[in-house]
């Protein structure tokens, strides 16, 4: 059904083309989410393994990339391995990149309250392995020397992946060795680097997004360089960026303005390419997905069956059996349809399901479409 190709880390955390393994033969359950303001968002899969197998993953698995292919050779999901959890007997081991930082800056204030900063400190070994991941720490009532000491201490602590909160040791009955891999979409790495800009010039918001991506790639070359999938917004915004702002924060601040008429949907999708365009809710009469309540799958507008793992957000979904009485033609959501902001696909031995969620601004219940054994 799905092939989960795992690729090794290249230098600087950039995905390599070296295949580590294909998890298709052992995965017992699989879940991914895709959202309209992220793209490929999260993916988890779990499988039984041996003790040696678990140690292989725990020792060197973080930062590996995954490309999930469907039976049509299409890319279903793509991201990097952020957290590994192994259940070994009664114990749980978890390592994660989430709280790691290998380039640290300290901002401090003197005893008189004067703010200052010291240069960043880096661990180049960690950076060569995973890419650069920033952290800003604060220290009050100190000086540059103390800030330096604090920086060195914290860098030593944060530079390597840390155990996740689920790591425990316990006695009791032993069980099988179970491995759970949690992947994040590449969009999440836009939180890894911090930036700033003192310019007060006003520039096209989408042009700024392209510029920011290029600047990011100059440090962590994680993304495709193409920007022609970022539809021009036609509106401008000031280029100023407060210090210690992540690239993600600034990009979202720009894209949340939409095009001055309609909101935007954006995210990182196939080939680690950034997409941004006016959201599908702007044309609610253009239905992308439809379903009859008695059917276990979603169909496209022409009636073609869409596999659960290929259902995407930033689409308009309609339940065919529900007839709207005089719907507002410009309404994003109504009794019979809604704008899909996030999709969750889950596959296990009992079922294949996809959940379509509306925008968070509405209180419409998500639609769960499940096929059971």
């Amino acid at each position, binding site marked *: *059904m799905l*092939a989960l*190709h795992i690729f090794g880390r290249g230098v600087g955390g950039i995905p390599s*083309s*070296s*295949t580590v393994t*294909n998890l*298709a*033969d*052992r995965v017992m359950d699989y879940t991914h989410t895709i959202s309209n303001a992220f793209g490929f968002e999260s993916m988890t899969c779990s499988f039984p393994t041996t003790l040696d197998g678990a140690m292989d993953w725990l020792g060197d698995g973080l930062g590996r990339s995954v490309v999930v*292919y*469907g*039976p*049509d*050779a*299409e890319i279903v999901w793509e991201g990097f391995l952020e957290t590994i959890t192994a259940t070994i007997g009664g114990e749980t081991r978890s390592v994660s990149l989430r709280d790691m930082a290998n380039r640290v800056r300290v901002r401090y204030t003197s005893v008189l309250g004067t703010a200052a900063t010291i240069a960043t400190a880096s661990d180049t070994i960690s950076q060569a392995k995973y890419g650069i991941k920033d952290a800003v720490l604060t220290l009050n009532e100190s000086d540059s020397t103390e800030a330096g000491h604090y920086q060195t201490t914290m860098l030593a602590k944060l530079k390597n992946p840390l155990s996740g909160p689920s790591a425990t040791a316990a006695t009791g009955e032993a069980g099988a060795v179970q491995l759970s891999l949690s992947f994040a979409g590449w969009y999440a790495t836009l939180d890894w680097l911090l930036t700033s800009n003192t310019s007060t010039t006003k520039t096209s918001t989408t042009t700024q997004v392209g510029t920011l991506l290029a600047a990011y790639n100059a440090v962590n070359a994680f993304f495709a360089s*193409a920007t*022609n*999938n970022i539809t021009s917004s036609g509106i401008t915004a000031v280029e100023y960026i407060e210090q210690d702002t992540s690239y993600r924060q600034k990009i979202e601040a720009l894209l949340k303005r939409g095009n001055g008429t309609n909101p935007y949907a954006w995210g990182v999708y*196939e080939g680690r390419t950034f997409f941004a365009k006016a959201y599908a809710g702007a044309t609610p009469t253009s239905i992308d997905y439809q379903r*009859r*309540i*008695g*059917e*276990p*799958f979603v*169909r*496209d*507008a*022409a*009636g*073609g*069956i*869409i596999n659960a793992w290929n259902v995407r957000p930033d689409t308009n979904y309609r339940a065919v059996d529900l007839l709207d009485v005089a719907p507002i033609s410009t309404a994003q959501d109504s009794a019979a349809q809604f704008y899909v902001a996030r999709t969750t696909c889950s596959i296990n*031995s009992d*079922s*294949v399901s996809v959940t379509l969620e509306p925008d968070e601004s509405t209180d419409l219940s998500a639609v769960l479409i499940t*096929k*059971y*054994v």
Partner: protein
Amino acid sequence: MAIEISVDGVLGTIYLSGTAGEYTGSGTPWTSQSTTPYELSNNDVTGNIWTPQAAIAQTVYGGGPPFRMGQTLISKNWANVTETLGVQMRATSHNSAVELLRQLRQLLNQSIYSRPAQLIVKPNGATSAVYFDIYQADVQELATHFYEGTSGHVLIRAAVTWTRSPFGSRLTSGETLINAGSFGNTGTGSPDNVVAYSAAAGELIYDGQPLNLDITFSSSAWQYCAATIQSMEYSTTGNTTYTTSSTTGATTAIATTFSADAATDIIALRGRFLIRFTSPSSNIQVRITVIAEASGTLTSLYTSPWITPDAVSTVVDFGGFPLDSVRNTNITSANIAFSLGYRSTNGASASITLHNTQFLQYYTFCNVALTGISAVSGTTFRLASFVERSLLPAQPFPYPTAFLLGSGRAQNPMLIRGRAPVYIYGSSLYLMWYDRSGGTDDRVHTTTRTATVTVTGSPLYHTLRGAG
């Protein structure tokens, strides 16, 4: 009816379906059915009464009451089979009987550190044996049937519960379905890029049986597409140059139709367009919109993503799409057509020339690519979905593997995307491949290339094989 059942492993072969053999503590009487001290659950009247249990299909159904009548079969597959059979073993002493018991346990549990034992089943009068992999077995002697007669003859009866592969297969090799078939890298002429499979044996010929492909290309190649298809249709309609400066894109309807007749009946079929282009400018992107007929005003069935062709003469794969809209109409004929979309990525003039179109009604499709090394010629590209090794059952692999075959060894693993070809009754193999352009990853498509392909398939059997 007596049935020859043996298990084979690293430790040798044991016949389980004996009649009157007895182990004296020396020799290897279990290696022949006529002398083996093992017997299956015995009935004085009927003799041996065990037969393999057929694997039960694991199905996923969807829909149903209260919303509709009936349910739709979505998918089907098979898990391992766990079954219990009674085995009795005769010896002239207690220790010899326990030796038989121990040997059975050893032989049936080799999977983890060696290879699975084989269950071999061949009823009397059958032409062929069928072979299963045994992954694990529990052997429990029955206290109530541990008989030690005063004469010193010992009979142990045991319950053997093993977990084995869901289907039986042949041994060592599959059957040849395409024997050194000639393929051309084009959808027209002779040879073209489609060769029909010979009729296969086995019980899953309508569900899909695994295939092994050995492909030798006439010149350097590094990536290929392989599909099990119902039909391939070739057209040169619309073969002209398309030019635009628009970043939004222009569209031209291609004035020809392609038959989707087979898809009106066969629900597993999907559609796919592969279009050959020449002279693409560096700033061009293309996509297609599939429509139900030649008219450009009807509802689109599928719109592909915008694709940037490699800057060489190449074939663009626009992706698979469902053909459900032509089903459940009570009409056995259906045509589809497409419009070609093209846009400039930077507002400057962009152009591309359409050379030909191939439309596939397919069951499975995959793309297999070398990574990290230059293209090679004269080397066999192997795509393996089942075991073909001396004295091993031709069982399916957990997932297909692809690699270069050099000096009799597997070299350079290749990345498989999509579903590897399987045998479906009445289907054919479609092949299309790319050369590299210099040292880049550009996919050059040359219509004059040829390839020689041998395809073997593994017939699979639920229980018995007969002459199959």
